[in-house]
């Protein structure tokens, strides 16, 4: 290593130092402990008892709920992430224009994030009520018979996805896109317009490439957060009807804090972690092909 590169490495580690200290002091220990517990029988009161890989084997071969819960969670992700990303970016571009009362519109769009979840759950349950709900009432006006929404096994996950979209589209994702859009120079857009590029062409060949770093951020975290989705399912459906919304997070919660089988819950969490980590790693690999960093350096 040249002395120049060595100096760069030293400085790099120096700036990383707070993270290293924090990780070693507060994060690594609990993570390793949970890994250890996943090979134990542990009910929080009695001392852990080593059982080898039993928890893992049980999860993969004897637990009827585990694998379906993962599949179901991925189904939710597929419903919620691509549409959510597109809508958030669209909303951010809408609110990045010079408008009257821009501040006010943005605040309105952001309100679902600040709405107390209990209140939102109550209201959504009413709106999606098959018989007296607002949504089916509106559908009936145009001659469509609405589904059973949260009370139907087929529609429960899409219903939660609908609620999830309502909460997140105008939330932090939109705000992050808005920040990303500030990196798109108006001169470049104007130049493209003068060259005869239409609205769509300006979007796909100027705006979109320049915001790929924020798109990538929102994609990766959107997948992680929606795979961990818990609150809405817990409050609105409690995993039902007939386990139709029994997501992996509910399954882990159930084992950890209802049946107090902490060792088993840890094994579930680690299996879930492995899937998620592999998935995220893959996304980083693929990102080299489509994410454009103006400040990327040759390796």
């Amino acid at each position, binding site marked *: 290593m040249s002395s120049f590169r060595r100096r760069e490495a030293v400085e790099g580690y120096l700036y990383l130092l707070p993270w290293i200290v924090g990780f070693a002091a507060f994060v690594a220990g609990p993570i390793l402990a949970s890994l250890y517990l996943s090979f134990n029988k542990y009910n929080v009161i009695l001392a852990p008892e080593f059982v080898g890989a039993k928890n893992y084997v049980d999860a993969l071969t004897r637990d009827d709920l585990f694998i379906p819960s993962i599949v179901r969670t991925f189904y939710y992700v597929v419903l919620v992430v691509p549409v959510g990303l597109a809508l958030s970016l669209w909303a951010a571009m809408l609110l990045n224009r010079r408008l009257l009362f821009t501040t006010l519109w943005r605040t309105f769009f952001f309100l679902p994030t600040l*709405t107390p979840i*209990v209140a939102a759950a109550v209201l959504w349950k009413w709106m999606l009520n098959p018989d007296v709900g607002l949504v089916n009432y509106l559908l009936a006006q145009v001659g469509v018979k609405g589904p059973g929404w949260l009370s139907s096994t087929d529609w429960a996950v899409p219903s939660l996805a609908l609620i999830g979209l309502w909460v997140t589209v105008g939330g932090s994702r939109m705000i992050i896109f808005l920040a990303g859009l500030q990196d798109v120079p108006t001169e470049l857009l104007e130049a493209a317009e003068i060259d005869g590029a239409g609205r769509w062409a300006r979007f796909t060949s100027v705006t979109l490439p320049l915001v790929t770093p924020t798109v990538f951020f929102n994609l990766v975290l959107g997948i992680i957060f929606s795979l961990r989705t818990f609150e809405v399912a817990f409050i609105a459906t409690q995993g039902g009807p007939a386990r139709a919304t029994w997501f992996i997070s509910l399954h882990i919660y159930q084992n950890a804090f209802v049946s107090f089988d902490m060792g088993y819950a840890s094994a579930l969490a680690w299996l879930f972690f492995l899937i998620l980590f592999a998935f995220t790693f893959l996304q980083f690999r693929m990102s080299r092909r489509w994410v454009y960093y*103006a400040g990327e350096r040759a390796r």
Partner: protein
Amino acid sequence: MSTTLVRPIAATGARADRRLGQVALYALLAVLSLVSMFPFVWTFLSSGKEVSELYQIPPSLWPANPRFVENYREVWTRVPFGQWLWNTFLVTVLSLVGSVLSASVVAYSFARFRYPGRDLFFMVTLGTLMLPVEVTLIPQYLLFKQLGWLDTFLPLIVPFWLGGGAFNIFLMRQFFMSIPYDLDEAARIDGASSWRVFWQILLPLCKPAVATMATLGFISHWNSFLAPLIFINSESKYLVAVGLRYFSSGVTQGQAAARPQDHLLMGAALMVALPCLVLFFLAQRYFVQGIVMSGIKG
């Protein structure tokens, strides 16, 4: 508007089209805003109802018998709400400053320096977001117990000064990486230290990102629930999000039937949300306050 004045060539037809487009645009914004704000407004109206009115189907919009003053007064007298708000404010500000500074520095390292293990460290950072908290909670509790930090604000503040959270680190990394490296190089050739490049060039260029991170960070610290629930015992040290449980306790979570204090819960939850709303409103001008980047990008 001034653009229409300096463009007298524009045909009247095109101008009419434009006006129609504007009307459609504002109509769209109004409809979307209505959809977004309705539950929030409903929550406010509900906070002035009697509890029996809360869950009637279909829900009422206006309280039949408004008792806003009584309900809000009850929230403030039944629990030490002011004390909890102050605790939350203290913890939020102290942890937020730490996480913004710390995450920016760490992200600078990930975005601008080359060293062995960097990508591994970065994946580990993201990995900390992926392991469900349910299984690290108890070990974490034991750790803070060992340190003698239980029932203090330290577990809620100190870790944020050391790393600042994977979300923030990743966010700032993305923004730093969108700034051309030529800028750093030019400054370094002029003799600037790496710290100066960070503090005087990159960070100011990322103002919208920093404002975004700070605002979202405030909201998430302000509403943090799980950690304060586990690490704080004394009622006088509660944070508001935990304190809200006072109004929903006693009955199983998630039941749709009216619970005796839900009208108070809604009022209290709204008061908790209010500072975030005000902050979001005020922070806006910083979200889009980019330095003019023309000629730097692309």
